[in-house]
């Protein structure tokens, strides 16, 4: 059991986690000294190029006014942030967050992390720029002006190398498009493109591997796995490929956002028949729960509404309020999808059809519950 983080350091770490636009992860917190009252070392993962850069931030609990030192992982052995700062001259040095370190300023660690990430981005660009690969040189020259693009060199266990590009797609702010959205970080959909580095003078370099990547938050709005990417043709470059991907994706995102409205109208249509929902997801409208009664039998109905609504129908789960299994949890029905459904019905009609279906189905469910109760 490690002691708590030194208050001065904890203030800096909390500030970083609360205010940074990056979703930095804390991997580990531990104390350097024996029998220490406070911990003073933190391992953090900084998001970069759809992956994480892991580093140890080393403070000294007995000298908390001294600026922390950072140890990077062995893959980043070559990364020399302070050397890079120094090589840019005195003006750059005096602007560094490490200059005049003030341990009582809680924003200092965040400033340091952002500065290091920035230096790391340039370091990776430099590494990729130094590769002797004509195709990659071309891609770097054409793509780097694009805003937000990140690139890094990945060494594989078999000593070959790959270059990974992370390209933010769509020039639209997803956080603003979703009404009343509660996402803390700026959401983006990225295209990950991995080029193998060709060492030989092979005539036809292999096609890169392409994949859409997003956070789990975006996946609740829109399932990127279902997006079909166009094929990468021979001799293609990123500048040719990206517009096709973006046009296709844009349509689907607009559709997904329209689907939120459809879901909301559906949930609203439930209340005249079922009463006000007990619980509903107010932002993306993916879930709603209503309370129903048939005679003395009361039960909940959970609606899970897919992102493709109304093309795809919601999944229903009934949960009894009166029957419990041997572990004491309420008995639920299996997911139900085989009820009457048409995407062309308007929301009140849909709700009515579901209500009618449930009036019959709840009798089966009641029997199911009685059978399931341990005797």
């Amino acid at each position, binding site marked *: 059991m490690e002691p708590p983080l030194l*208050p*001065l350091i904890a203030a800096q770490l909390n500030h970083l986690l609360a205010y940074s636009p990056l979703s930095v992860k804390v991997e580990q917190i531990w104390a350097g000294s024996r029998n220490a009252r406070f911990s003073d070392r933190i391992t953090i993962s900084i998001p970069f190029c759809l992956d994480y850069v892991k580093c140890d931030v080393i403070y000294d609990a007995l000298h908390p006014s001294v600026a922390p030192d950072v*140890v990077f992982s062995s893959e980043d052995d070559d990364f020399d942030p302070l050397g890079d700062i120094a090589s840019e001259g005195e003006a750059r040095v005096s602007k560094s967050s490490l200059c005049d370190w003030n341990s009582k300023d809680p924003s200092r660690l965040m400033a340091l992390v952002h500065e290091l990430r920035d230096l790391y981005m340039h370091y990776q660009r430099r590494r990729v720029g130094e590769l002797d690969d004509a195709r990659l040189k071309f891609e770097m020259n054409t793509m780097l002006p694009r805003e937000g693009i990140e690139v890094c060199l990945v060494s594989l266990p078999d000593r070959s190398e790959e270059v990974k590009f992370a390209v933010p797609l769509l020039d639209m702010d997803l956080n603003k498009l979703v009404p009343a959205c509660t996402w803390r970080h700026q959401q983006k959909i990225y295209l990950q493109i991995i080029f193998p580095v060709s060492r030989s003078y092979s005539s036809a370099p292999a096609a890169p591997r392409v994949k859409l990547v997003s956070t789990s938050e975006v996946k609740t709005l829109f399932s990127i796995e279902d997006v079909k990417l166009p094929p990468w043709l021979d001799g293609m470059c990123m500048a040719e490929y990206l517009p096709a991907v973006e046009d296709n994706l844009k349509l689907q995102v607009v559709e997904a956002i329209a689907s939120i409205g459809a879901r909301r109208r559906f949930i609203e249509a439930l209340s005249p028949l079922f009463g006000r929902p007990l619980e509903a997801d107010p932002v993306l409208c993916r879930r709603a729960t209503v309370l129903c009664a048939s005679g003395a039998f009361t039960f909940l109905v959970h609606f899970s509404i897919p992102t493709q609504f109304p093309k795809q129908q919601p999944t229903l789960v009934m949960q009894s309020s009166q029957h419990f299994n041997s572990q004491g949890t309420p008995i639920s029905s299996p997911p139900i999808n085989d009820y009457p459904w048409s995407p062309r019905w308007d929301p009140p009609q849909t709700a009515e059809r579901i209500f009618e279906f449930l009036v019959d189905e709840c009798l089966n469910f009641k029997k199911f519950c009685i059978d399931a109760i341990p005797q």
Partner: protein
Amino acid sequence: MAAAAATPDGDGHPHFSKISISGPALASVIERFASSPSDIDGLLFGHVSRLPPPDPRDDDGGGHGSPNSSAGSAAAAAANNPLAATITGHLSLASRASFYDALGRLISPSLRNAASSSGHPAASLLGWFSGRRRSPLRPSMRERAVSLSLFRTPDLLDTNAPPDRSLESLDLPHRPSIFLLLSSSTTGNQAVHTHEYRAFALRLRAGGGGGVLEPRSLDIVNVGPAFRAQYSSFSPVSAFPWMPCQLRGPEEGEREMGNKRGGGESLNRLQELAREQHLLDSSTGGFGAETLERLVGPAATGYTSELEDLYGKMLLKLESLARLVEESSARILEQEGRISELRSRVEGLE
């Protein structure tokens, strides 16, 4: 390998091909680290020697990291032999991060002060060390920057202290480029203490952009047949004053004194002699050379009691010394407690 020749200053200091440390020196660094409450850092001192020339076959291959900038003369060829560094001592600095700033730039005055207070000649500065508990045994970003700054600061050794000729002659021109990294950890129940160390040598990058700390093996010099070579290259350095071995009678010395009285130079010389004699006397503990003479020969048996007397006095002296050490240690401990209390108050821990 060409990197050494690409030193921006153009003087092409070769880097060390072999790094060794004496067993006691390593032990004392580890001991210092283990007994310190927090992370530590400090300077490493020692000497530099040339390794014997490698096989002639290797001459054209440049298999050793020597520069070819000064090629052309025979002397240069000899000077191209790889260097070996031997760490013999360290200076652990009282407060951490005292001679460099957060960006790894040196604070020259405090470094110079520290180096001159160490008692080691400044020219024997080989590098520095850092000990941080429970952390990876890889150089941190600041350690890398400090190593580079230490290497790049040429006037570091320019202290105003009088040059110590006996040591300087042994030392070859070099730059402090060694970095020793220590880490330690203990198991939860304090049953197992692990001490790890790794030596690095700084190599400048070919492009002139910064330096790389390369891990190097560290030879530990201990007593034993495997280290006989160390003894042949050993040059003794003694704390005793240098007494010129001149045979002369007492009246001769007096005459000299009479002749040159008034001359400032001779006065200085006399003062120096008196000081040295005093130092020697204090070491002998009242056991003069005349007494020593009587210990040799047939009459020696009669003087055993005198010998015992000598040992008795030595023991007494040791005992009082031990008491002094004990007292001062207690006082230091008290002072340290007070300092850490003050510090935590200043830094807002309480």
